[in-house]
Structures are given as structure tokens and as C-alpha cells.
């Protein structure tokens, strides 16, 4: 029983209380996270019958792509106090003895038992449902099996006759299943018992709009009908051949049932626990069942006689039980059944009384059949209080509106619908729930801002708002901006708790006072001892201001791990190695060495977007050997790890290309060799194109150089990434010499005056006067600093040294490339790779559980 090894380990842990969770779905995951978040130190055992760690079932549709990893993160949450047992079937619960029986052989005692058994997909007892090729849509295993069948069918059928699928059930799950099948080339039919899809969430107008949109996506609908039988194939009576629907027979190679879910309350019923008439285990507002010591959360919990299959209430219940078990008095009082999803690229959302069930409600409707948009607000009879809403085709207003449920709308209802005019800029009430998945109020978001979270990422992290389904992120951003504006926050430029100065101020102070170590800097102009924000910034400034090796003079402790290891750390703790390939030009000899190194060290090899080669999966202790091999072949570090110049991308240029007007490769090589190793507030990229066709995509770079028949045009401030931006023209038709001068000045001015992690685009924007100011400084020398900028750059260029070679020549630095200080020969056995497309990749959290990687054995 290898899967029970973890159970047998249990007696070694020491705790006053054991909490056993039956079920390992998202509710169980949330419960464990919440319990630990409250500092509880009970032993927790999670028993899951699936063979994988808890995963995000909400996004099951994404698993049609088998590479999409649905595991809920934090594999580190499983440790010696928190055990996940997979393939664990609970046979029975004994409420008297307070124990559960697992896999027919183990009795596990509990102090508190949390039922999180979820539900099963419903399949009615129709003839033919036992045939091969009939599925339900509930688990990753269901999708895996379907995908395998689909692939077999597609290859057996050949392209001339596509395979055919019938999905039964036009709710959320059915539509998702159908979407996956369409993607796999199935001719897909969808059978639904009502006249419009998603009939539990959408009113007729919204539903019919959705019907049209789904039909347009190639799915044939059979509405208002139920199947009467699933029929075998003529050729092979053990497999499915069709579905009888009314008078019709729909041919089918595959049938998927998605008509709803049934709570998994059988364990509870067998144990003599109370169950609800409609299924499920009844809970009170504390999520307690009627049996002492037993709680229920998620889809199996019946609240007010109803079980719901949505993630928000499941999370809320999990939080309530975690609170109750740690002395809190949180309560679950209301099921939030708001839904928002993207179906086949189409936004659909509903919340509150979306079907206008209450009497006397008023509907405000916007319907645009041409655009396929339907929006409805349900209001109280005085047209003021928002009671619900439906959105199909455009759900943009959803996030703000669902938060206002049960409240008076601050403006005219129609203004909240698309194209309806401006929404009044009213203050949002503090107790309004902005993020319903995690139950985060407007007040809590404002608090996060007040505690110093001044960008969306930190507000999300701090408040947990917007971290689950993501539909409220826009709203969270609005609340944050408003709060910051209201507080007169011009986004503080203070670097961190240790430095009141902004980065440019710090740069000037360090340069002018000639402070050369972090200790000097923090003692003279900071407070405390530094942190992960200011240490790398100071190290970076010291490198540019005094051009020394980033690891010299005790600077190791200042650097991010990437700079310390001179390689990029990947999610599993291994590193990637990127040798410099200036301008993307490489000899076959060097290419062969890279290939040999990759093969020898079993590195995953990928061509990067910057015309370089990334070698991934190197262990810490392998890095020096890998560098030595690359250096022996005449290569050097590509600084892919640093806040520094990365690569200069080029097209082939006039040497080969019939359109080229300048030697773009030659210029790219020259520029890359000039600025290699240059440390900057953020990474820097350059592109050089040999003609106006712009094959090097230079305008997507911090500096874009584009050949003209008279010389070069220089563009600055472009980038790809999260907010792509085209670089803007700084100067036209400069010669080679002037081109270098302009870039010298631009880079140096940027390095001295940009904020921490500010790329060139926002930096240019932040300059008073923007591009005009930049032209004055760089081209007209309005500040009289051009000579100084050029000479500072000249010094840096002259002092360039390869960081890899310097490390190899220094025994002290080399000694740090050992994984364990007390056992120089040992390697990290928790690094596990699995094969994929002829190479390797890190095992996912789910795979690690299955290959029983010793995560449990490596400490909490």
C-alpha cells in the first residue's frame, strides 16, 4: 500500500489535535490553507480518492490541453503536520469512536472531521449508459479518458469524416465539455431539456443570445428535449453509436453527460448522519453538521436545503470551519451564486435574482442581436435597488455591479450597461464585497492600500482579492486607484522601509559621496539593515557607479539569487544558462558546443525570443562546469539573469538581404559588445533592423535602431511584455558614431534617473516634458551633462569583465556552488524532471505527488 505510507508516518508527529478531511478537492485545499493561515498546528490528514493533489476544478475545461497544470499551488503546504493521502477511499465513518476507515485496512482516529466529499456527476439510469464511449464531465481523469478516446477516434476516422459527439446538458459544464470537443474536431451536438442554454442562470433573453452565439461556434443545439436512450454502434455493440432524442437519432462516437451534480453524501448516510431531502449533509451557519465533531463544506454541504456547485460558497464554508476550529465565530449566512465565465471566448455572467423571480421587479434591458450582446439589470419596484443581473457577450459591467447587489445604484441604471453613458463616480461603501471568491470587502482593499500596497500585485497578495477567478481584478484596481488618489498618494517613491530616497536620489547620493559598500550606504543614508528590495538596488547602483564585479566586496548577500548564481532560477530551484550570442550571430562550432553541453547535462533547450539559446534545468553545482565548457569555446555570460542589457536582436541586413540598406548584424554585434554587462534599473533590450521593413522588431525594444539610406533612425522607450509599447522616434538619420553617442547618453541618463524596476517606456513618460525633454537633454545637451554621461559609459565599457570567468577564477565564489554546506557530495533529490517532447521539464505538483517525491520528508 505505497499510497498509505504517509498514514503510517503519522504517529511520529506530535500534536494535540488531529483534523481529518474527507475529500481532496478545492474546498479541502482552501480549508487547509485557511487553517494554517490562522497559525493552527493540528495534525491535518486530507484523504482524497483521486490520484492527484487538489486541483482547480473550476477550470477543468483547460485540461483539454493536457499540459495545462490545474494543481492548486503551494506543494509546500504538505509537510509532516499536513498529510495528503491520495488514492484513499474512505469506507466508513464511526462517529462514536471518532474514526474513519480507509482502504479497507486502516482506522484513523480524528478529533475533528471535515466532510468535503463534493459531488458526483449525475447520470440517469438510461439504457445504454454502460456502453464504451459514454462519459461524465467532472474530474481530470474524465477529461484524460475522453481526450484519449477522442485522439483514437480522430486518427481512426481520418479527415474526411469527422467524429461526432453528443453532449447532454446545456449548463455550464455541458458547454465547457462541448467546447473541448469542438476544439478536437468533433461535430458536436448539445441536448438540453429547456429552451435556452444555462437556463438556471440566464433569463430567456440572455439564454437565447447565448443560443445564437453557441450555434455560431458550430455546435448544433437540440433544445427542449431529453434523450430517451443511448444506443450501441452497429459495428461494435459494446460501444456507443448514437443517442435517441425525441423523434431523432443523433449518431455519436462519444456521449458526455453533464446534466448536473449529486452531492456525495453516501458516507454520511451510512454513518447515520442526517442528510437533506434533496441530498447533501445539512449544516448550520457554523458549517457544523448535527453530529458533534463533524463539519461539512463545499458541494456536499446542504445549507437551507440547497447544495451548490460553485467555488465561492465552498471557499466561504472552508474559511468558516477554519475559523470555528481556531476559536473564531465566523458564520456562513448566504449562498453567493454569482457566476462569470468565458465560454468559447464569450463572456457570460449572472448574479442575484437574475431570473426576476421576486414579484414587482423591474428589468432594465440592453439587447443588441447584431453584436450578440444582452445585458439586464433587475431592480426593485422603485427602480433603485439592484437585485440581480445577466450579461451575455459583454460582461464588463459585471464586476462593479455584482458588488452593488442589494444596494441602491448611485446613478441611472442604464448608465451601468454597455454604451449607456458615464457611471457616476460615487464612493463605494466599505462593507461591499468586491471579491466574492475570497470574501474581500472594499474596506479590506482600502486597508491593504493603507498598509503600503500601492500596486495591483501587492494589493492582490495582501488582501487576497482577485486571486481566484480573477473577475473582480478590474474593480480592485479601481478601488486601489481611487483610494490612493483620495489619500493624495502620488505613489510614494520611497524605496523601502530602509531608504526614504527614491532610486535616482540614491544613485546620486552614492555616486557623489563615493559610498562603495552596502554597509556604508545604509549607515550614511538609510536605517536598519536592509531587505530584499533595497539590497539588490544598491548592488546594482554600485555596479554601475563603480563598475565592479557584482559578487565582489561582500556583495553576494545583496544580490537576488539570479545575480548571485549568475543564472536564472526556475520554479523547481534549477537554473537556466544563457550564453551571449551577440546580434544572434553564431558559428556552427559554437552551436555544436552548446548542443554537446545540453546533451551532456541533460538540459532542456529552447530558442529565446531574443535570438539566443536557453539551457534549462541545470543544478546549482553544475553551473561552474557548464560555464567552463562554454568559456573554453569562446563564449561568455549573456547576463540573462541581471537587470542589465540582455540581447541585441537583428535581421540579416544588407550583407545578405536584397532589401537591406545597412549592415544591421554588424551594428547589433557592435552594440551588444559595447553594452554587455551594463547594470540598469530594469532589463534593457535593443533591436537593429537593416531597412524600414523592420524584421528585427526593433520598435518593441528599449532602443530600436532602424536603417535608412542615410544612416540610422533611433527609437526609444519600446517594450513587449505585459504592457506592449512601440518605441518613439528620438532622432533620424544619424551616422554610426552619433548613433553610439545617442545610445550612451540615453542609457546613462535612464540608469541615473529611473525608479526601481521602471522600464524605459514608463520612465520616458514620467519625465516632465516627455520625449521633448529627452531630445533637449540628449541632442541639445540642455542640462550640460552629455560629456559626463558619455564618459561614464566609456569607463563601464572599458572595465567590462565576464562574470562567469571571474567566478571560475575565484575559489571562494566557486565554493558557494554546492547545494549542501555539510555534505558537498549530496545532490538535491527533490528536483524531479519528467520527459516531454524528447526533452525534460520539471514535474508538476500533481506529478510529484504521484511519483511520491519526498516532499513530505524535507521539512515543513
Amino acid at each position, binding site marked *: 500500500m505505497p499510497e498509505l505510507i504517509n498514514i503510517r508516518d503519522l*504517529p511520529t508527529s506530535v500534536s494535540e489535535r488531529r483534523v481529518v478531511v474527507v475529500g481532496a478537492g478545492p474546498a479541502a485545499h482552501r480549508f487547509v490553507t485557511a487553517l494554517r493561515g490562522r497559525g493552527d498546528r493540528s495534525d491535518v490528514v486530507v484523504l482524497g480518492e483521486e490520484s492527484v493533489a487538489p486541483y482547480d476544478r473550476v477550470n477543468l475545461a483547460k485540461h483539454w490541453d493536457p499540459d495545462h497544470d490545474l494543481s492548486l499551488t503551494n506543494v509546500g503546504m504538505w*509537510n509532516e503536520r499536513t498529510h495528503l493521502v491520495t488514492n484513499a477511499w474512505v469506507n466508513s465513518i464511526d462517529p462514536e469512536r471518532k474514526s474513519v476507515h480507509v482502504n479497507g485496512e486502516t482506522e484513523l482516529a480524528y478529533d475533528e472531521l471535515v466532510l468535503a466529499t463534493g459531488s458526483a456527476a449525475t447520470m440517469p439510469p438510461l439504457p445504454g449508459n454502460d456502453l464504451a464511449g459514454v462519459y461524465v464531465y467532472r474530474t481530470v481523469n474524465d477529461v484524460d479518458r475522453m481526450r484519449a478516446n477522442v485522439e483514437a477516434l480522430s486518427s481512426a476516422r481520418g479527415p474526411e469524416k469527422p467524429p461526432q459527439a453528443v453532449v447532454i446538458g446545456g449548463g455550464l459544464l455541458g458547454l465547457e465539455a462541448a467546447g473541448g470537443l469542438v476544439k478536437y474536431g468533433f461535430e458536436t451536438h448539445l441536448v438540453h431539456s429547456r429552451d435556452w442554454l444555462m437556463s438556471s442562470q440566464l433569463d430567456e433573453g440572455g439564454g437565447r443570445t447565448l443560443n445564437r452565439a453557441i450555434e455560431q461556434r458550430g455546435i448544433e443545439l437540440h433544445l427542449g428535449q431529453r434523450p430517451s436512450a443511448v444506443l450501441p454502434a452497429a459495428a461494435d455493440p459494446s460501444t456507443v453509436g448514437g443517442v435517441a432524442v425525441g423523434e431523432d437519432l443523433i449518431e455519436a462516437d462519444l456521449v458526455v453527460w453533464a446534466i448536473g451534480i449529486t452531492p456525495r453524501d453516501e458516507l454520511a448516510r451510512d454513518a447515520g448522519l442526517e442528510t437533506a431531502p434533496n441530498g447533501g449533509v445539512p449544516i448550520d451557519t457554523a458549517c457544523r453538521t448535527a453530529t458533534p465533531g463533524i463539519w461539512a463544506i463545499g458541494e456536499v454541504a446542504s445549507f437551507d436545503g440547497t447544495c451548490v456547485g460553485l467555488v465561492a460558497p465552498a471557499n466561504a464554508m472552508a474559511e468558516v470551519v477554519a475559523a470555528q476550529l481556531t476559536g473564531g465565530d465566523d458564520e456562513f449566512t448566504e449562498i453567493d451564486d454569482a457566476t462569470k465565465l468565458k465560454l468559447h471566448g464569450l463572456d457570460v455572467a449572472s448574479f442575484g435574482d437574475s431570473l426576476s423571480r421576486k414579484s414587482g421587479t423591474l428589468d432594465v434591458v440592453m439587447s443588441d442581436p447584431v453584436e450578440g450582446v444582452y445585458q439586464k439589470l433587475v431592480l426593485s419596484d422603485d427602480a433603485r435597488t439592484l437585485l440581480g443581473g445577466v450579461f451575455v457577450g459583454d460582461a464588463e459591467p459585471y464586476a462593479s455591479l455584482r458588488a452593488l447587489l442589494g444596494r441602491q445604484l448611485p446613478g441611472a441604471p442604464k448608465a451601468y450597461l454597455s454604451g449607456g453613458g458615464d457611471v457616476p463616480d460615487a464612493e463605494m461603501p466599505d462593507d461591499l464585497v468586491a471579491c466574492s471568491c475570497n470574501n474581500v470587502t472594499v474596506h479590506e482593499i482600502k486597508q491593504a492600500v493603507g498598509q503600503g500596497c500601492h500596486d495591483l500585485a501587492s494589493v492582490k497578495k495582501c488582501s487576497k482579492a482577485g486571486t481566484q477567478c480573477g473577475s473582480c481584478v478590474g474593480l480592485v484596481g479601481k478601488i486601489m486607484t481611487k483610494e490612493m488618489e483620495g489619500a493624495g498618494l502620488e505613489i510614494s517613491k520611497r524605496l523601502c522601509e530602509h531608504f526614504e530616497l527614491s532610486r535616482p536620489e540614491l544613485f546620486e547620493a552614492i555616486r557623489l559621496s563615493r559610498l562603495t559598500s552596502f554597509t556604508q550606504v545604509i549607515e550614511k543614508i538609510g536605517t*536598519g539593515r536592509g531587505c530584499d528590495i533595497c539590497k539588490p538596488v544598491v548592488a546594482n547602483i554600485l555596479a554601475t557607479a563603480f563598475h565592479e564585479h557584482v559578487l565582489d566586496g561582500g556583495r553576494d548577500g545583496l544580490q537576488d*539569487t539570479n545575480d548571485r548564481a549568475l543564472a536564472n532560477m526556475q*520554479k523547481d*530551484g534549477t537554473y537556466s544558462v544563457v550564453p551571449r550570442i551577440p546580434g544572434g550571430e553564431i558559428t556552427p562550432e559554437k552551436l555544436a558546443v552548446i548542443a554537446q553541453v545540453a546533451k551532456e547535462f541533460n538540459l532542456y533547450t529552447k530558442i529565446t525570443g531574443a535570438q539566443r539559446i536557453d539551457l534549462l534545468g541545470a543544478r546549482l553545482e553544475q553551473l561552474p562546469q557548464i560555464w567552463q565548457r562554454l568559456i573554453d569555446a569562446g563564449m561568455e555570460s549573456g547576463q540573462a539573469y541581471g537587470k542589465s542589457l540582455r540581447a541585441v536582436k537583428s535581421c540579416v541586413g544588407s550583407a545578405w538581404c536584397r532589401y537591406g540598406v545597412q549592415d544591421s548584424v554588424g551594428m547589433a554585434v557592435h552594440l551588444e559588445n559595447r553594452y554587455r554587462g551594463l547594470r540598469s534599473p530594469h532589463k534593457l533590450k535593443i533591436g537593429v533592423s537593416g531597412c524600414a521593413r523592420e524584421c528585427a522588431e526593433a520598435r518593441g525594444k528599449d532602443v530600436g535602431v532602424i536603417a535608412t539610406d542615410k544612416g540610422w533612425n533611433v527609437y526609444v522607450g519600446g517594450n513587449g511584455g505585459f504592457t506592449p509599447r512601440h518605441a518613439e522616434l528620438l532622432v533620424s538619420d544619424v551616422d554610426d558614431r552619433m548613433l553610439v553617442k545617442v545610445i550612451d547618453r540615453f542609457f546613462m541618463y535612464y540608469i541615473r534617473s529611473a525608479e526601481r524596476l521602471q522600464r524605459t517606456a514608463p520612465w520616458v513618460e514620467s519625465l516632465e516634458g516627455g520625449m521633448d525633454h529627452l531630445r533637449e537633454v540628449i541632442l541639445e545637451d540642455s542640462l550640460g551633462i552629455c560629456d559626463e554621461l558619455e564618459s561614464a559609459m566609456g569607463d563601464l565599457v572599458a572595465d567590462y569583465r565576464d562574470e562567469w570567468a571571474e567566478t571560475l577564477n575565484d575559489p571562494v565564489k566557486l565554493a558557494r556552488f554546492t547545494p549542501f554546506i555539510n555534505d558537498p557530495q549530496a545532490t538535491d533529490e527533490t*528536483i524531479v524532471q519528467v520527459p516531454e517532447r524528447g526533452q525534460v521539464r520539471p514535474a508538476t505538483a500533481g506529478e*510529484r505527488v504521484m511519483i511520491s517525491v519526498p516532499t513530505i520528508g*524535507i521539512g*515543513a
Partner: protein
Amino acid sequence: MTVLTRKTHSTAVETLTWTPVVEEHRLERDVGAAALLKGRHIALYRTWNDRLYASSNVDPDTGASVLSRGIVGESGGVPTIASPLLKAVFNLETGECLTNDELSVETYPVRVVDGIIQVGLDF
């Protein structure tokens, strides 16, 4: 049938075993190091004031054994380690995460005997 019941409660101090790791002088200030102790990955740190700390080396965000390769720092006077991967910051004294309530790392007592760093383990 295996019957598993709770172990009777005993205090953590009683079950500590002091495990020698490495000579004190080999641990550099502000540069963490990982050690393999009884099959577990432990991170050791020496802070600016030459205090020693030990925690699990496993980053709870990712499960990767990398915490010792983060940046040792200070926040409000408390010694901290910032994970090198997703940058969660942990209090080295308590293991609490200062940036995400849901995370924490196990910490262990450290002492020096005859110039050798020892870590107190309860497993």
C-alpha cells in the same frame, strides 16, 4: 488492521535532538546556506549581528528547496529571509510570512558548541 491513534502529547523541547552541521566560521554573514540533516533540507543564516537562524529550506510557495538562496534582510528590526522565487518574506525568528498570511516555514533552534553550529530538530 492498522489502528492509528494520536500519540500522547509531549512537549517539543523534550524531543529536540541537537544535530551538528558545520563549523561556525564557514557560514558567511547575510549569505544563507542549505544543509542536509536527517534527510531534510535545512537552511542556515547568519545575520548582520552574527546571530544564527535555521529554517526549512523549502519555499512553501513552490515546494522548491531554495530558501537559503534568498536575500537575508531585516524588517522592523526582525531578521528576515526573502524567497528567491516568488519573493515571500519570512520572519526568521518565528517562520511567519510577512507578505502572505497563508504561508509559513518551520524554524529550528540553533546553538554553537565548540565552534560547531548545531540545529535542534524535533524529528
